């Protein structure tokens, strides 16, 4: 398992793609928002939590098609499926690798982008906490989308259509935590719901992902 994790991490870093691109995308989306809505500081402060969550979500989504596609093409997935490691575990590891290379950097850079978006002071902690809790769920749900569409040529658009509706609950609770935090309200309830969603999908989603991948590997 650790071998698979280090392999995936090494590939992601060496191939250059996932690591930097997701971050750059997050940065660009955030920079584009003030151009679109105007540079009014109060307005930016108001929409900052939502925009940052949406940017992180899209950055996560865009890197999903690389999650399984390359391993599918060179046959690594077939080897993984026949290895003694359960496919569910292999997919969990792949989701973890995706989170370390995409989600974690997004969490770490989000305070800097919060400054750009004029995020109110108390919001920074809750933004980082909500993203740290929520992005694992995004990676795990995304793995399911990638497993469903791995056999489809140019499946990127299709995967967005399938994955985005599944992201709705995570986005609602995650952005609510950040918003309440920024407005100085108590974010406990949405925070617990977000943590519950993450725990639930981390535990159960790999079963569905592996089922979908087995169908595709048939």
């Amino acid at each position: 398992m650790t071998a698979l994790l280090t392999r995936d991490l090494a590939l992601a870093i060496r191939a250059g793609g996932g690591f930097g691109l997701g971050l750059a995308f997050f940065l660009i989306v955030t920079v584009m928002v003030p151009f679109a809505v105007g540079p009014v500081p109060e307005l930016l402060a108001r929409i900052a939590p939502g925009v940052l969550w949406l940017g992180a979500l899209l950055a996560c989504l865009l890197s999903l098609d690389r999650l399984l596609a390359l391993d599918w093409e060179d046959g690594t997935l077939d080897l993984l499926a026949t290895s003694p490691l359960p496919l569910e575990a292999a997919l969990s590891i792949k989701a973890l690798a995706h989170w370390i290379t995409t989600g974690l950097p997004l969490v770490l850079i989000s305070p800097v982008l919060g400054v750009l978006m004029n995020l109110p002071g108390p919001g920074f902690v809750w933004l980082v906490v909500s993203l740290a809790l929520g992005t694992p769920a995004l990676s795990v749900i995304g793995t399911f989308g990638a497993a469903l569409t791995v056999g489809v040529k140019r499946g990127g658009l299709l995967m967005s259509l399938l994955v985005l509706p599944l992201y709705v609950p995570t986005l609602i609770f995650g952005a609510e935590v950040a918003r309440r935090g920024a407005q100085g309200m108590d974010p406990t309830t949405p925070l617990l719901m977000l943590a519950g969603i993450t725990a639930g999908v981390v535990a159960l989603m790999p079963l569905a992902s592996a089922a979908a991948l087995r169908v595709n590997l048939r």
Partner: protein
Amino acid sequence: MSMSNETAAPKRPSGFWSYANPVKFLGLTERVLPALWLLSGLSLVVGLIWGFFFTPDDFRQGSTVKIIYLHVPSALMAINAWFMMLVASLIWLIRRHHVSVLAAKAAAPVGVAMTLIALFTGAVWGQPMWGTWWAWDPRLTSFLILFLFYLGYMALWAAIEDPDTAADLTSVLCLVGSVFAVLSRYAVNFWNQGLHQGASLSLDKEENVADVFYFPLLVCIAGFVLLFFALVLYRTGTEIRLRRARALLAREARA
């Protein structure tokens, strides 16, 4: 399943499961469909004419209340169509009956149409009543999300060439999607308290819609349910014949 069944010699399936045989299924639908079309048409005509022309205007909503005869049945069927797809997908995943998954496939476009009717009639009613075509109310929002789930399900069917792979993947998506649709429903409730009134009809409530509106509404609901069954049976038959035609063409190409 009881013990005696497991020990007995394998026998031909009887009762409900015998209709997993496409030939038997087609035979049944051909016998049932004319009656279904007739009954659904009849109850829709009766229900809508009764509802539109022979019920009083509401004392607050005026004549706009009459949109209930389209809005409530279509919303009901939009949700139940997804539920039917869920059951059919489960049957396919467990018992591998092709007719079942084809019925799920056939139900999706009908469900989309019902969702759109519900959203559209709701917007038409909302404009004079709430002063807006659209509000981010929990019920409206969850219907929009349901619509997205339908789109994803149909897009996945369309994208995959091998019919059995497509059937398996869409069934898995339907299962996962159902869980997330329920989750979204509660998440959306949490996110925004709504404008939409409570349920018009429920079995466990003392007070429902007034009787003058209630009975024509029941007739309309019956009409929509029958229409849904007729459309799904008809479309399932089309899917079965389409698959058979493809198989015949493939056999001819090989010969």
